């Protein structure tokens, strides 16, 4: 009996250690970037920096905060996460509520559901979408990043499934009292779905913060591009520079010349908002997954 207990605890120790190492593998790359951003350029280039800054300096951040292009892209990103998720949420709720009604109450429901749902199965693809965005006059416009994806259909279906699981009696009682559909949505459904709404808002916010492709595709010049696109340009250019030569010495020189520390500082600043809201999201993201799998 005693021996078995010992075996189990040995297993637990190994299991815990292995999983903890796995968890560290998710944390260490971020710490590495953080350490590089606070280190001296020379120390970085010679590969001395691991997970703790070497020759601590704020030079990279001072440089980055003076960089007007980066700063502007940051403002665009903040504007985007203010406007984008609000519109996403508004349209998600407005679409999900009628679609959550039974077929008998809303006869056209099935047709509408399929119209929305089909967009998750098939799409026009990059070039036809680009042409429509261009025809609607959104090239080089802030709204090119907001309108084309304004209805997040996946979240509409999630919200619809959630609404359908709310007790019908509440709604029926409200009718008897003479409430309109708008009042029922606003006064009964929304207050009951605060957690789901919070989940969807946070996911939309992160999606908007992270999106870079629309900012690249729909803008002819870097003016007006969000930070994610700015960083994409930066990352691709530096990695291209480094990859153009296989010669080890040239590479060494290049990385000394390159602004690895400032890039690290920019990467860290781009991560910061997500790292800040992440702890608050923890209780929601499990719900996000589970909500998506709820059956209608």
């Amino acid at each position, binding site marked *: 009996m005693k021996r078995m207990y010992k075996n189990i605890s040995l297993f*637990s120790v190994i*299991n815990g250690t*292995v*999983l*903890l190492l796995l968890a560290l593998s*998710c944390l260490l*790359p*971020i710490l*590495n*970037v953080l350490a590089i951003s606070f280190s001296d350029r020379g120390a970085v280039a010679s*590969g001395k920096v691991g*997970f703790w800054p070497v020759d601590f300096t704020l030079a990279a951040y001072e440089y980055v905060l003076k960089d007007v292009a980066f700063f502007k892209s940051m403002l665009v990103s903040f504007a985007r996460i203010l406007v984008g998720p609000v519109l996403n949420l508004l*349209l998600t709720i*407005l*679409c999900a509520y*009628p679609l959550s*009604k039974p077929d008998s*109450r809303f006869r056209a*429901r099935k047709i509408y*559901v399929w119209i*929305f*749902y089909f967009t998750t199965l*098939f*799409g*026009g*693809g990059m*070039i*036809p*979408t680009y*042409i429509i*965005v261009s025809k*609607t006059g959104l090239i080089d416009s802030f709204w090119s990043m907001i309108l*084309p994806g*304004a*209805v997040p259909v996946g979240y509409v279906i999630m919200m*619809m*499934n959630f609404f359908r699981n709310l007790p019908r009696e509440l709604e029926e009682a409200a*009718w008897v009292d003479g409430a309109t*559909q708008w009042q029922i949505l606003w006064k009964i459904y929304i207050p009951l779905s605060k957690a789901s709404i919070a989940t969807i808002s946070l996911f939309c916010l992160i999606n908007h*913060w*992270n999106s*870079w492709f629309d900012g690249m595709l729909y803008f002819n010049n870097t003016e007006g591009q969000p930070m*994610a*696109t700015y*960083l994409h340009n930066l*990352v691709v250019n530096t990695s*291209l520079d480094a*990859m*153009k030569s*296989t010669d080890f010495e040239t590479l060494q020189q290049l*990385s000394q010349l390159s602004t690895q520390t400032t890039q*690290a500082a920019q*990467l860290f600043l781009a*991560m910061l908002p*997500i790292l800040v809201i992440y702890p608050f*999201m923890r209780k929601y993201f499990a719900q996000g997954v*589970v909500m998506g*799998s709820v*059956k*209608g």
Partner: protein
Amino acid sequence: MKKLTADGQKRGKRMQQLPFHLMLIPGLLVVLIYNYAPMFGLVMAFQDFRPARGFFRSEWVGLKHFERFFQYPGIEKIVFNTVYIAVFKLILGLVVPVLFALFLHMIKNKLLSGFIQTVTCLPYFLSWVILGGIFVNILSPSNGVVNQIIQLFGGEPLYFLGDNSLFPWTMIITDVWKNFGYGSIIYLAAMSNIDPELYDAAKVDGAGKIKQIFHVTLPGILPMVFVMGVLSLGGILNAGFDQIFNLYNPQVYESGDILDTFIYRLGIDNAQYSFSAAVGLMKSLIGLVMILIGYKLADKYGDYRVF
């Protein structure tokens, strides 16, 4: 039944459906313009599309662009890369989260398992732009941490993002790494729904930890694993544009060029709009068929419906 309809008619005025239609109008407009108009725009795949002439006055060329695709030099390589990377991402993206969830479930210390779960979910929420920047740094052959460690053990520095024999697996492993934590949540949720009495019964029958996994935990989550597996079938041609576009370079086109990056370069860099749209259309159609097969299987054998 009759009484119900009569009731419905009585309340008809207040229960009318007009508000529902009104609520749907804004969302419907967005979807019609930005999702359905581009689908109509796919007619350009059968034209020699010129922006100045538009969809209606460009010249019709039938299946020219589709024929061209199959004769395009090096196209087998691109299709192979796409399927190779996508299939291994699908398999490992299914197996690794399940294994991780099984082992995490065995940790009884709530604080420790909570910490591990929180940290491993984090990469899922970071974009490939940021992670791309990070990986270019830590995988750098000259001063990246990973190669520092390899050299510490006496190995030669590896060119993860510049060597054709390493690039595809660098993509597969970093993608699995990004998603395994978040992917395991759904299995952990399924595990917490398993009736604890089943474990007690297994213990009474003399089943140890390992036997409990095989006879209680695994059967308990298997339906969910099946559903997730068949639902991911639609991604058979999605090798991960966001990731590869941020990490590839001409040196690894041979092993890392995929359909999506090919479509992008054709359409944007080379302005071959119709050809690009044709390749995109074929990819979307195959994806559509695979998704429908997946949903059918999930519905039939996994008792799962999207709505």
